[in-house]
């Protein structure tokens, strides 16, 4: 290989040495004469409409040079990528919370204060923010309510109990007919399949069985589990079991298939 000066050779990062010794200066490491310190007040609510930002009290504090709010912005939005430029410098109307795969951010900044560092903590807390929960926190509310109901009504437990009873009954039906049907799954979700045979009649048996169920107003997915719901009544399950029994009887008769072990 030709002798290049860079290609084919390892090279060190030019800044790695300074970073390894702690000499490298980052923004927070800089200290300049008469430097002011900024403090950002972030929304304490995940998703809320901003009704009012009152910076008067913060402005009056000794040592505070400036309080910046959305009123000081041109309204231009930014973002790392062109298609994500949806964040205001400081929002005027609404704060949003972001939920990512890895974690949650602190909410949008509402205002920024600049002044001597010792008064900064106080200044930020003296800014008065009033806001309401924004309507589409519906998703969070609904999720929390669902969990509450699941726990209060013992929903999971009841589904298992109901499912176990139902499955026992279906197993009996499956065993009664020698149509090569198989029942798999667990109580809340079960699946009725048909054993493969050499003549590939299992597809016909499957189609016939599920079609017969639909004729009896019961829909079970031929390629997926069926589910037991909390709202299923004993009557619902009874109707489903009867339909399964009749559909099995139909398949049994149509295919005269008593070839499988009963």
């Amino acid at each position, binding site marked *: 290989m030709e002798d290049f000066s860079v290609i084919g050779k390892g090279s*060190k*990062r030019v*800044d*790695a*040495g300074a*970073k*390894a*010794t*702690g*000499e*490298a*200066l*980052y923004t*927070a*490491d800089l*200290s300049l004469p008469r430097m002011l310190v900024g403090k950002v007040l972030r929304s304490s609510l995940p998703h809320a409409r901003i009704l009012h930002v009152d910076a008067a009290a913060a402005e009056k504090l000794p040592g505070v040079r400036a309080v910046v709010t959305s009123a000081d912005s041109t309204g231009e939005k930014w973002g790392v990528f062109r298609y994500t430029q949806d964040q205001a410098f400081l929002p005027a109307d609404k704060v949003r919370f972001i939920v990512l795969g890895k974690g949650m951010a602190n909410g949008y900044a509402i205002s920024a204060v600049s002044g001597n560092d010792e008064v900064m903590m106080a200044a930020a807390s003296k800014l008065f923010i009033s806001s309401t929960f924004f309507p589409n926190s519906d998703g969070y509310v609904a999720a929390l309510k669902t969990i509450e109901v699941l726990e209060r009504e013992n929903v999971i437990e009841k589904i298992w109990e109901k499912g176990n009873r139902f499955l026992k009954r279906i197993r009996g039906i499956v065993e009664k007919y020698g149509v090569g049907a198989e029942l798999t799954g667990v109580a809340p979700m079960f699946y009725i399949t048909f054993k493969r045979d050499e003549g590939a009649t299992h597809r016909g048996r499957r189609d016939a069985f599920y079609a017969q169920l639909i004729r009896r107003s019961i829909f079970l997915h031929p390629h997926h589990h069926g589910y037991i719901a909390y709202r299923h009544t004993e009557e619902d399950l009874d109707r489903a079991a009867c339909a399964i029994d009749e559909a099995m009887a139909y398949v049994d008769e149509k295919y005269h298939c008593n070839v499988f072990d009963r």
Partner: protein
Amino acid sequence: MVKMEKQGLTLRVNGQVYEIYAYPNMTLLEALREELHLTGAKESCGQGACGACTVLLDGLPVRSCLLLAREAEGRQILTIEGLAPGGKLHPIQEAFVEHHAIQCGFCTPGMILTAKALLDQTPEPTEEEIRRALAGNICRCTGYAKIVEAIKAVATREK
């Protein structure tokens, strides 16, 4: 309201003795960065989760953002600045540079000091021991593979 007053404080950092005046609630990290101007220890999360502020206290890694400066009085404090005093890189620093274990570098001082404490106690750590030792130091960009490789290389070299 109790008025807090600044008090005298003696810290032994990187073999030197420093006298500072500080409020009792000043953290060791604040003392190092703001009073002694040793900015190698970084503040990232400020609540003991990330390890960027790691320094060695009597040879053991501590989170300087959670430790009051006062609590470090009379102890030997080592910061990243004390690891290569003459300008010659410590073998761990060298290995980090060579193995590209540094990208933005913000976690690096904490990583290197944590690695030093590990290697001082366990000169030939297994990969699992290295990973366990680094569990409290978060890196957002380099990734841990290069860092682990660098520490392994130091251990092998020293053999």
